[in-house]
């Protein structure tokens, strides 16, 4: 079990996982190393949350396959799991809603702990001063923490004025936390520095310098598969077997959703607003 002074952390990664690759798994490992190295955290669980088919991304194959491949990959780990909740929703779900869902699940599972633990937890709790006046946005001390595993582009987008609603940013970095994996050394810290909100919650933003976490390797994998090239060692063997067995990822699958508008942008189609 965790030492009493360490905060337990659950890492959540959202994405297409189309397909899951070793880069995705490495991301979790890097994040865990970084957090535990600070001496304040112990990472107890990693959650892979594949996006639902309703996202309508071009080339996105059926969620059942993606879930199965993610499970085969997670089987190689003793702390990374797959959660199908997001993928089972009938409509596309914004990432913040997914994070909120998993946060609530985490709270609920904590409430089920025995009485001794709840007393200890209540004593450690303190409400942080919240600049924007909403206590519900503050992180709880002493309980488990849910952090979103993402790329540094998220940080940069948060530091662009008026791009996001202020309260959304506060929720993500205030109540939860970010672990940003980045290749470029200095930029993420610049974004934290140039934004008052990010600066205030800088202790909840962990920048890990390594791979760029986006879909590049999955794109490369799909392209290589279409061309009959080897993708061995880019993803777990079990996942590769599954892909071969079911003949996933060909020229036809890449055209899926080719004419459809990506779910988050669908509201921009049609008549203009007021």
């Amino acid at each position, binding site marked *: 079990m965790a030492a009493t002074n360490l905060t337990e952390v659950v890492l959540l990664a*959202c*994405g297409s996982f189309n397909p899951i690759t070793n880069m995705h798994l490495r991301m979790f490992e890097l994040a865990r190393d970084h957090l535990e190295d600070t001496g304040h955290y112990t990472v107890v669980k990693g959650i892979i949350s594949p*996006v639902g088919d309703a996202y309508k*991304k*071009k*080339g996105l194959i059926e969620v059942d396959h993606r879930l199965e491949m993610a499970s085969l990959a997670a089987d190689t780990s003793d702390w990374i799991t797959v959660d199908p909740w997001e993928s089972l929703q009938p409509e596309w*779900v*914004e*990432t*913040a*809603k997914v994070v909120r869902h998993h946060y609530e699940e985490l709270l609920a599972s904590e409430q089920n702990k025995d009485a001794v633990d709840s007393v200890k937890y209540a004593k450690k709790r303190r409400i942080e001063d919240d600049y924007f006046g909403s206590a519900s946005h503050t992180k709880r001390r002493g309980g488990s923490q849910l952090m*979103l595993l*993402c*790329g540094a*582009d*998220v940080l*940069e*987008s948060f*530091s*662009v*004025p*008026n*791009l*996001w*609603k*202020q*309260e*959304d940013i506060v*929720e*993500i970095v205030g109540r939860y936390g970010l672990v940003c994996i980045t290749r470029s050394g200095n930029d993420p810290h*610049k974004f934290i*520095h*140039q*934004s*008052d*909100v990010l600066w205030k919650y800088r202790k909840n933003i962990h920048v890990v310098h390594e791979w760029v976490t*986006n*879909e*590049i390797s999955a*794109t490369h994998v799909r*392209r290589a598969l279409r061309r009959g090239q080897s993708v061995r060692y880019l993803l777990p063997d079990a996942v590769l077997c599954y892909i071969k067995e079911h003949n996933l990822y060909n020229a036809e699958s890449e*055209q899926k959703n*080719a*004419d459809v*508008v*990506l779910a*988050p*942008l669908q*509201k*921009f*189609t*049609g*008549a*203009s*607003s*007021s």
Partner: protein
Amino acid sequence: MTEASKTHVILLSCGSFNPVTKGHIHMFEKAREYLHKTGRFIVIGGIISPVHDSYGKPGLVSSRHRLTMCQLAVQSSDWIRVDPWECYQDTWQTTCSVLEHHRDLMKRVTGCILSNVNTPSTTPVIGQPQNQTPPPVYQNHSNMNHKPNAIKLWGKISESLGKICCVRPHMERFTFVDENANLGTTVRYEEIELRILLLCGSDLLESFCIPGLWKDSDMEVIVGDFGIVVVPRDGADTERIMNHSSILRKYKDNIIVVKDVMNHPMSIISSTKSRLALQHGDGHVVDYLSQPVIDYILQSQLYIKASG
């Protein structure tokens, strides 16, 4: 087998916004409506980018005020936002560099916008203006210092410079080697092509024909690489204007003129008229400016003295 997919567009409007008028907002709305009607575009955001204080135009109030007024003007919009980047630079920026800045920024952040680390409520992405919080200060970036010779001439023309709209009609011209490559001014992410187009009124188009006002290389980038969407006003004859410039003729496919806006009462609104109305206590100002903007102007005592 399938139709070409739509181009996703962000409309960027540069100008003094001194002050921002109902006409400016109307321009954005008309451009979006028209682009959607063509069936080839999805407008996913609009950006108002007020010019830097060092622009040197007489009567230009401080960027602090102009930014606040712009934010008040778009506070109920779910797709238009105000970006203070230009105002926060060390000096005046060329239109070209503003376009390039936003293109490069979108390249880096579009991915997360589209995968949407945001709330369910209303618009994610590009349209949530803040109401009272002052915008965070950008760090100063080192920027190219173009000679401001053009500024003086510019000043005469630029009443509604903010609005340049260009629409690039043909998708088939873009060939992408790699789904994640960013080629030229087009951002490609998640198989989506995103273009930044300059939104403007016909007066900006006219200014392209003034010899020496614009650098040819800048025009090539603005019209050739990006594209413009033009909302005509005051009875302008855009065909004639475009014929007067070789660069505009060369890239006429990249210039979309929004139709059906002439004779609309909004097309005669201007910031100049608004300032005059304010100076003379003319009640018509409520036709030109939105109420929150008027309230702010009165409260901050802007535009009291005649200028320019």
